[in-house]
C-alpha cells in the first residue's frame, strides 16, 4: 500500500516538473496564458459587472481566457496592492474604480501603493453620473433653495455618505456653497438610501444607478446632477453649474490598470482591444443599464486624469480639514 502511494506521489511530482520546464520555454508572444482581472471589491456590484463584461469579450478578441478574480478587503486596498506588486507582464490587471485608485490613497496615510507610480493605466472605461438627492419632505425644489435652507439652519440638517467618494463630494459642496450640514456615514448605498427615505437624513449624494428607482418612485427628490452636461436619462434635472455652483463636477468612474513597467506594446494592445469592446452596441447597452457612460480614453489621457483626480480630492481633504486616516 505504501509503495503505491510513494510511486503515485513520485509520478505527480515528475509531471509537475515537466509542466514547469515546458511552460517556461513558451514565454513568447502575448498573450499565451490566461489573464486575470482583479476586482478589489466583493462580487455582484457594478464594478464586478463591468469587469465581467470586458473579460467575456476580451477572451474572444485576445484568444486567451480572461478571468475575473474578486479580492475584496480594506476598501479595495488589498486588491490594488496585489496588482501593484504583480509582475508587469500584462497577465494581471486591475479593475480600478475611482474609490480604490484615487480616494483611498488620498484619505489614508499609510497606503502600500502609489496610484501614479505603481500603475500603468490602460484606459478609463466608464463614468457615472452622481446625483444630489433630498428627502421629499424637505421644502426645497432646487439647489438654490437647499443652500438657503441650510444656511438658515446651520448644523441642523444631516447628510448621508454611502462611500468615501460621496463624502468628499459633499464636503466639496459644503465648501463651495458655504453651508454647514452634518456628516452621517453609512456603509454603502442601501443603508444610506433607507436613511434618506425614512427621513433619518435629508440630503445625499450618490450615483444615479442607486438612486434612479427611488427618484422614479417619488421616495427621493433629485435636485441636480453633478456632471458638466445634463444627463440623457434625466433631461429635466439641472446640472450643479446651472444651479448656482459653477464648475462643481463630481462623478464615479472605473478604469483598467496594469502594474507599472508593463511593456508599452502590451498596454497599447490592451487599450485598443478594450476600447473596441466598449463601443460594441451590446456592451454599451449593458453598461448603460448600470448607469455608465463610455469613456474609452488612451493610456496617456487616463494617466493625466488620475493625477488630476488625485490632486482634486487631496485638495478637498485639506480644505475641509478632513483628518487623514492612519
Amino acid at each position, binding site marked *: 500500500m505504501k509503495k503505491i502511494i510513494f510511486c503515485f506521489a513520485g509520478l505527480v511530482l515528475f509531471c509537475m516538473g515537466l509542466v514547469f520546464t515546458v511552460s517556461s520555454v513558451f514565454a513568447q508572444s502575448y498573450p499565451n496564458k490566461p489573464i486575470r482581472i482583479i476586482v478589489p471589491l466583493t462580487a455582484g456590484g457594478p464594478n464586478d459587472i463591468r469587469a465581467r463584461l470586458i473579460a467575456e469579450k476580451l477572451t474572444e478578441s485576445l484568444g486567451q481566457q480572461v478571468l475575473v478574480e474578486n479580492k475584496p478587503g480594506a476598501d479595495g486596498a488589498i486588491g490594488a496592492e496585489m496588482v501593484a506588486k504583480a509582475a508587469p507582464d500584462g497577465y494581471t490587471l486591475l479593475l480600478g474604480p475611482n474609490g480604490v485608485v484615487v480616494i483611498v490613497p488620498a484619505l489614508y496615510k499609510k497606503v502600500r501603493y502609489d496610484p501614479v507610480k505603481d500603475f500603468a493605466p490602460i484606459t478609463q472605461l466608464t463614468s457615472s453620473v452622481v446625483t444630489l438627492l433630498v428627502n421629499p419632505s424637505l421644502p426645497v425644489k432646487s439647489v438654490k433653495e437647499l443652500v438657503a435652507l441650510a444656511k438658515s439652519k446651520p448644523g441642523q440638517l444631516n447628510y448621508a455618505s454611502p462611500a468615501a467618494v460621496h463624502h468628499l463630494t459633499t464636503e466639496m459642496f459644503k465648501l463651495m456653497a458655504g453651508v454647514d450640514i452634518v456628516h452621517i456615514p453609512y456603509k454603502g448605498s442601501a443603508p444610506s438610501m433607507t436613511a434618506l*427615505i425614512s427621513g433619518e437624513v435629508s440630503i445625499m449624494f450618490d450615483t444615479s444607478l442607486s438612486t434612479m428607482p427611488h427618484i422614479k418612485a417619488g421616495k427621493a427628490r433629485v435636485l441636480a446632477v453633478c456632471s458638466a452636461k445634463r444627463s440623457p436619462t434625466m433631461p429635466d434635472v439641472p446640472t450643479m453649474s446651472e444651479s448656482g455652483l459653477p464648475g462643481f463636477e463630481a462623478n464615479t468612474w472605473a478604469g483598467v490598470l496594469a502594474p507599472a513597467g508593463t511593456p508599452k506594446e502590451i498596454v497599447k494592445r490592451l487599450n485598443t482591444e478594450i476600447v473596441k469592446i466598449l463601443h460594441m452596441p451590446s456592451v454599451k447597452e449593458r453598461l448603460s443599464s448600470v448607469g455608465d457612460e463610455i469613456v474609452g480614453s488612451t493610456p496617456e489621457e487616463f494617466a493625466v486624469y488620475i493625477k488630476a483626480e488625485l490632486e482634486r480630492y487631496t485638495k478637498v481633504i485639506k480644505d475641509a480639514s478632513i483628518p487623514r486616516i492612519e
Partner: protein
Amino acid sequence: MVDILSNLILGFSVALKPMYLLYCFVGVVLGTLVGVLPGIGALATIAMLLPFTFNLPPVASLIMLAGIYYGAQYGGSTTSILVNIPGEATTVITCLDGYQMARQGRAGPALGIAALGSFFAGCVATLIIVLFGPPLAEVALKFQQAEYFSLMVLGLIGAVVLASGSLLKAIAMVFLGLLFGLVGTDVYTGAARFNFGISELFDGIGFVPPAIGLFGFAEIIANMELKGKIEVFTAKVQRLMPTRADLKASWKAVLRGTAVGSLLGILPGGGALLSSFVSYTVEKKVARDPSRFGKGAIEGVAGPESANNAGAQTSFIPLLTLGIPGNAVMALLVGAMMIQGVAPGPRVMIERPELFWGLIASMWIGNMMLVVLNLPLIGIWIRLLTVPYRLLFPAILLFCCIGTYSINNSTIDVIMAAGFGLLGYFFRKLDCEPAPLVLGFILGPMMEENLRRAMLLSRGDPTVFFTRPISLGVLTAAAILLLLTIAPVVRHKRETVFKE
C-alpha cells in the same frame, strides 16, 4: 382580496412553467448543498453565479438565486445538527440543542423537525409577504439607528440567556466576543483597530473562522480525547422521523419561531440574523423546564429553525416593496435585477407584476421542493454518521478548510479558524460556552455602528434611546429580560445566605 388572488394566479401561472420550475429546483438544490458545506454560503454562491444570470430571463434568474438563499437555510441546519458546525450565521443556534440531540441518537427527529418547521415558516412568511408586504415595509422604515441599537442590546442580553451554564462565564464570553468584534476599522473615522498591520484583518475577523473554529474544530479536538467512544452516535440511532410526542412538543415553538422570524426579518440590516437567537431565548424563557435547553431540547431546534427560515423569506420585503436590500444577499439580487434592466423599487410590483408575483409563487414551490428533498435525505445523512469517526473527521476538517478558504481566497482565514479551534477547545475545558461569544462578536460591531450614528443624529444626546417610543419599548423588554435572568441567581444566593 380579489386583486391579490388574481395576482397569485398570475404568479403561479408563471412559476409553474417547466423552465422556471427547473430553475427553482436547481436553485434550492444548490442552496441546500451550499448550506450543508461549511464555510461557503449562499452569499458567495450567488455572487459566483451572478454573471451566469446575464443571459437568463429575469424571472428565471431571480427564482434561482432566491432559491439558493432560502435553500441554504435548510441545508445549514444539517451540519449544525450532525457535526456541530454552523453552515450559516443563522444556524449557529441549531448547534446548541440539535447536536446534543444527535449525540443522543436523535439526529433523525432533529433534522426532521428542522425541515418541517422550516417548511411551515417559509410558507407562512411568504403569505405574510403577500398580505402585509407594503405596510410591513413602512413599519421597518420606522426603525432607525436608535431602535436598532436597542434591539442589539436586547439581543446581547438574550446572548447571556443562551448559555445553560454559569451566568458569569456567559457574560464573560459575551464580552470576549465584543472584544473580538472590535478588530477592524472604526466605522466613522476609518482608523485601524487591533489589526496588527495585517491587511486581511482590516475588515475585521469574518464570521466564518470563529464559527467553524469554536464550534466545529473544537468539537473535533474534544472528540479526539474520547478515543473510540464516539461510536455512541451510531449505536443509539433510533428513528428517522420525529415522533408524535416530538411534534406535540414542538408545534408551539414552530409557531412562535415563525412569528419572531417574520417580524425580525423585515428589518433591514441584521434583522434575520437575530431571529434564531431571539427565538431560542423566547423558547428557553417560556419552557416549563429551561434546564433541558443545551442538552437536546427539541424546542431549541424547532423554534430557531422556523425563525431563520421565516426571517430569510421576509427579508425579501424591503427589497421587493421598497427596492432597498436588507442584507448582503439582497444587495446581490439588486445587482441581478439591474443587469436584467429591472430597476428594483416600489414600482416593480406595478411595472413587472409577472416578476414580483412569479417570484413569490416560486417561494412556495421552492419550500415544497425543499421539504420533499430534505426529508428523505435524512436517511442518507444518518447513514453518514455510521462512518467510523476516524475516517469522518478528516473529511469534515478538509471541507471546513476548503469552505473557509473559499470565502476570501485567503489562507489567513483558515489559520484563524484553526486558532479559534484551539481557543474553543480551551473554553470547553473551562466550561465556557462559545454561543454567547459568537453572538457578542456579531452584535458588537453592529451595536457600535448604530450607537455612534444615533449619537451623531441626536447631536450627542443619549436620551434619544428613551424618548423614541419603539426604542424605549425594546429597551424595556431588554430590562425585563435581564431581570428575569438575574432574579433566580439572586434568589438562590439569598437562600444560601439565609440558610447560613
